[in-house]
């Protein structure tokens, strides 16, 4: 094992701002995601509000956004701008940063017995580029024309033609592209670091098949990031060139906008953007959800006091999902005019990805089966993850068939599906991780009662929000409509929309319970012991919070797999991975 050697810093700036300590960087990522998730959530309030009460005057909105909401009434372009920013902030700044950049950074080195990441300086650079990316994205709120209105998928040529195609598609769209390009660079650097660290810095005895499933999930996610973000970066650069340098990668000739012929572009392909975007975009879904799967596996085993059921199957399933994830991007394009033959190929490949997902679900149930289940907050969210993963995943089996997708494509059925699985299931993974690791990260326990209230409202709430969206889709309600007033067939879904909006407001309010719990526990929480959950992995053999070099002068030595719970003949119902002279089954 090689060492990532650096001395503990003494000044505030080097300790907390430009830190190279993976733990500080992990917390920086988590705080960035926390700020981002509340911004993203507030945007969803505006979205849900406008759908149910379009044209309502809100004087506060008028003073905050004199252009987007003149006189306090939201315009359609303001709605679409909020929608675009909601999606972009949530997908990139929350679902990609918190589970991987946050928890992965903090716990991957510790769980494999390392003192830091392989490249600590690169790690710091990753975070600060991500931060720059976040600032760039947010700055789109403050430029003339506002944020882009082209959605988080930024389909060309809408996103390529500039302001002539609509408000926000000028400078706002440029900033959006720049932000994603920066984010891609940061993610590529992070992925390199994660992969190298996992392969090179494992402690003596930490064989690959003794690694916690969380480490496997961060490792597979890093591989996906390495292969996917390069493509997004390239796509972003090409789109920027189309917009600023007069190239025509995505813009065909002979376009007419606002009754004016576009003369400076010809020969490009709008579908090329979709291919590049979804070649990144589908793996991105797994980048968001895989770490949640890892945390869920970890938490289910700890709180069921039982080894993971089918550890190796879980590892192979993650690799299966990861590899298959690169062969299915075309299922986003069934209705794009792609050859109908390729739709069948993509459909059959996509069906295959349901199999490892099902295997994971079976193994989670198998892990609980025969256990002794404790219902602490982390466990509640892990159980919620499994439930939501099932609900959201099954919706995918309607959308992966081009025949059924004809009606459902680009309706609220899709919104329901991806919010359940990559939105709230992934968020439940983040919550499970937060409640689980908070004591280790900050040396204090979170309030259990508030955690339970937070869980109950959120679990029932997200089901109440997203389950009914399936029905909206089956009625044919297209997504990304600023108002639902123009079509007579949308009359019958108004009550459903009202229900969803109310459920959303209640659920969002409950997130402030989490925020209050988080902040309060930072300062006033009960002191946490070294191993409050009686867990087995390496982060639980060191103090809470861990010292700068994690393990002190002596390397930890690993003797067991990560899930030795309820070993027969042992007094305690768990064996630390570092426990010597104990017999366990190697699997």
């Amino acid at each position, binding site marked *: 094992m090689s060492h990532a050697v650096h001395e503990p810093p003494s000044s505030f700036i080097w300790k907390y701002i430009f830190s190279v300590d993976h733990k500080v960087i992990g917390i920086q990522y988590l705080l960035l995601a926390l700020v981002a998730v509340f911004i993203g959530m507030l945007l969803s309030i505006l979205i849900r509000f406008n759908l149910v009460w379009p044209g309502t005057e809100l004087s506060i909105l008028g003073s905050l956004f004199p252009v987007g909401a003149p006189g306090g009434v939201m315009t*359609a372009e303001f709605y679409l701008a909020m929608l675009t920013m909601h999606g972009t902030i949530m997908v990139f700044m929350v679902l990609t940063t918190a589970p991987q950049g946050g928890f992965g950074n903090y716990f991957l080195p510790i769980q494999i017995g390392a003192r830091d990441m392989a490249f600590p300086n690169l790690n710091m650079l990753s975070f600060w580029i991500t931060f720059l990316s976040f600032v760039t994205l947010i700055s789109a709120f403050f430029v003339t024309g506002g944020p882009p209105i082209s959605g988080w998928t930024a389909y060309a040529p809408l996103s390529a033609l500039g302001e002539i195609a609509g408000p926000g598609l000028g400078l706002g769209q440029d900033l959006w592209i720049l932000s994603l390009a920066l984010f891609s660079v940061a993610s590529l650097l992070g992925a390199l670091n994660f992969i190298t660290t996992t392969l090179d810095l494992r402690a003596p005895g930490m064989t690959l098949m003794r690694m916690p499933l969380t480490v496997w999930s961060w490792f597979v996610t890093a591989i996906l990031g390495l292969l996917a973000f390069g493509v997004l970066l390239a796509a972003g650069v090409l789109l920027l060139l189309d917009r600023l340098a007069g190239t025509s990668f995505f813009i065909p000739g002979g376009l007419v906008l606002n009754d004016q012929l576009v003369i400076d572009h010809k020969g490009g392909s709008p579908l090329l953007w979709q291919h590049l975007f979804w070649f990144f975009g589908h793996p991105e879904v797994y980048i968001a959800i895989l770490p949640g799967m890892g945390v869920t596996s970890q938490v289910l085993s700890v709180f069921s006091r039982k080894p993971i059921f089918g550890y190796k199957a879980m590892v192979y399933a993650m690799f299966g999902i990861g590899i298959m994830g690169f062969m299915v991007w075309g299922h986003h394009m069934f209705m794009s005019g792609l050859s109908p033959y390729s739709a069948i190929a993509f459909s059959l490949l996509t069906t295959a990805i349901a199999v490892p997902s099902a295997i994971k679900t079976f193994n989670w149930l198998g892990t609980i089966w025969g256990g002794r289940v404790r219902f602490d907050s982390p466990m509640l969210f892990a159980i919620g993850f499994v439930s939501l993963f099932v609900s959201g995943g099954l919706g995918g089996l309607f959308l992966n068939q081009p025949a059924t997708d004809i009606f459902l494509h680009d309706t609220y059925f899709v919104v329901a599906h991806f919010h359940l699985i990559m939105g709230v299931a992934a968020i439940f993974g983040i919550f499970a991780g937060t409640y689980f690791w908070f004591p280790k990260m900050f040396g204090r326990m979170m309030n259990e009662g508030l955690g339970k209230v937070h869980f109950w409202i959120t679990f029932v709430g997200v089901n109440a929000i997203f389950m009914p969206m399936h029905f909206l889709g089956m009625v044919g309600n297209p997504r990304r409509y600023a108002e639902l007033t123009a079509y007579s067939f949308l009359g019958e879904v108004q009550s459903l929309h009202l229900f969803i909006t109310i459920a959303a407001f209640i659920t969002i309010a409950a997130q402030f319970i989490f925020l209050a719990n988080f902040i309060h526990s930072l300062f006033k929480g009960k002191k946490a012991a070294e191993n409050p959950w009686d867990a087995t992995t390496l982060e639980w053999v060191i103090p809470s919070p861990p010292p700068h070099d994690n393990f002190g002068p002596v390397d930890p030595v690993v003797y067991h797999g990560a899930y030795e719970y309820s070993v027969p003949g042992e007094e305690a119902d768990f064996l630390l991975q570092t426990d010597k002279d104990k017999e366990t089954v190697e699997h």
Partner: protein
Amino acid sequence: MILAATIWFITIVTTVVFAGRFWWFPESVSAHGDALDRQFVITLAVTGVIFILAQVALGYLILKYRDRPGAKAQYNHGNNRIEAIWTIATTVLFYIMVLPGQWTWADIHINQQQGNPLVIEVMGQQFVWNIRYPGPDGQFGPTRPELISDSRGNQMGVDFDDPAGRDDLVLPTMAIPVNRPIELRLQSKDVIHSFFVRELRIKLDTVPGLTIPLRFTATKTGSFEIACAELCGLGHHRMRSFIEVLSEQDYQAWLRDMTED
């Protein structure tokens, strides 16, 4: 215990609302629509059973194996045979379920319907639909982007000086005869739109630079809304038009009316 009950409650409510069809597809009025609806129902049945089994099992397991005084957890790392069984079983089940849907898709988009379809051009534009009929000569005239001008009433850039183009009809709404194969040729003049008619079970993008064929046959008369299903800009939510499905006789009369104008 409450958690198990809550999971079951959510499962029951979801199942009841799906099965009770409180919100459901509009009645299908196209030749291929019933096959699509059938495939949806098959998928709903299979996934519904999995949904219920998985959620009920989750609730049951956390209820049965909750921590109680004296309870002991099993030391069990899994079972390769069970892994193999459920891997094979889900693979077989999922593929049996999705295969019939592939034939349905192939019938719509690959196995082209016999007979001479009535060809109509559709051109998406921020935020209206332009529909072109070839006129009495049955020939579409050539189009050129330079000729496009909304202000001069030539939304699709038809060369009206060309003999084939002289009688072309460009309209903001569509009419088609019932029970006759139709081929739409989808185009766009600016950004991507998507041509969506719920009752006809058709949806396909209009992509600038491409002409994409879409074939279907309407089986009932009536008036239906055309919606845009791909985000195309600030007016996306109001890019609405109509398609009238008429009897052959009414269609011919409508066509005559339009041509004489």
